[in-house]
């Protein structure tokens, strides 16, 4: 759902960048946020809510509503709409409570 020709803006994003969402390789544009890159690939469901297990995706786009949480580089609850995508980034859905306690013990 990438916009190649914008109705008003002449300058669009040019450089390709690759990342992984749930281990699947995807293409996006340099300068996009993680949320923008996911939506450009047609992904609306970023994760599931922890209590009722409902689909969650982008809502406010400005980092306030916490609906678009993902896991990046083993860090849970990263706000995808305010995080810039980086080459080779490994992005995973947040589908349940983080295993923080266990990680601490294991390390």
């Amino acid at each position, binding site marked *: 759902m990438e916009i190649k020709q914008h109705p008003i803006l002449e300058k669009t994003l040019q450089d390709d960048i690759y990342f992984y969402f749930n281990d699947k390789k995807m293409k996006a544009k340099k300068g996009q946020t993680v949320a923008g890159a996911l939506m450009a690939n047609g992904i609306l469901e970023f994760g599931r809510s922890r209590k009722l297990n409902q689909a969650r*995706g982008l809502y406010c786009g*400005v980092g306030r509503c916490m609906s678009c949480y993902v896991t990046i580089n083993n860090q849970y609850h990263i706000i995808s709409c305010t995080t810039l995508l980086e080459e080779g980034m490994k992005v995973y859905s947040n589908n349940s409570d983080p295993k923080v306690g266990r990680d601490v013990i294991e390390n």
Partner: protein
Amino acid sequence: MKTDVLVVGAGPAGIKAALTADRAGADVILIDESVFLGGQLRSQTQYFSNLPKNIDSGLGIEIYNELENQLNNSNITVFTNHTMVGSFKNGNIGVSNGEKVLEIQSKKNILAPGAQEEALIFPGWTLPGVMTAGAAQILVNREFVRPGNEAIMVGSNIFALEVALLLQQCGVSVKAIIEEQLNIQCKDTSKLGEIGNIPIFTSSRIKAARGRGKVEQVIIETPNGENELYVDLICVANGFRPILEPFEILNCEFTYKKGLGGWIPKYDNRFLTGNPNCYVAGNAAGITDLGPILLTGEIAAWNALGEIGLVSSIVVDKKIKNLWVELSRLEDEYVFKERLNLINNTSAIKY
């Protein structure tokens, strides 16, 4: 880290305040929690003309580019991706990028956190594909992503119509605009002409949104009965309200002013809040338009400069008087009246 003025929030009000202080010779730190500067202005492609006299009319993003240009030619220290997370006992402010905390000691703080869009609650409101009008605008204008193929817009204020129009220009089929009130809220008749072919349902509301993992269908209640539409995007333009957390952290007093967007920090005619070191600027001082937003940033900055002693009180008084005259000229009559009302009730604060 020491500075004369700390500005929190690098939207139009914060940038304008920072530039004003910088030009008067103050040391300025400007922080923003986003990796992008400019707030929503950075993503706006609508045309703004009702602006202060030293700013050219243009698209939102063009006005932002000019402000960014001025920032790059200033001595302002800018921290993006830094959030104000707390204050220390001595009044210093803690700012963090999620990894470490910077302690900033400033003589005066100007808080310009802006506004947030009001959510709208209905069954299915959390489904992916339901988003604020602002989020849709960001996706199109900053991310270059089309947020859906078939959409409805909830709300008929000027922002709702502008975003509906933008979506349509990007090839999104906007099937309806839903307005709960009896009348269309946008007063700009030229905007209404532009969206001519989108049906507008007044006295109507969303009954529910449905879908598996994303929006697939929406049911709207109109005076003529229920209407089912197959859409993958529901944009919500339910108005804005001031962001309050930084003022809560700094123990400011609050008051409720419907005409300014709801709960709001109290401030006096200097834009000084209940905390004697903190000024407020922009939409956080009352939801308004771009012109007044820029002016409030300037007013707050001149007052801070005067208090610090970098500018004489005679100069400050003269600047402030002119800026208030301009504010009264540019601002919506009702909003300005509410602002004066707030200020007149606040001047009684004693420090």
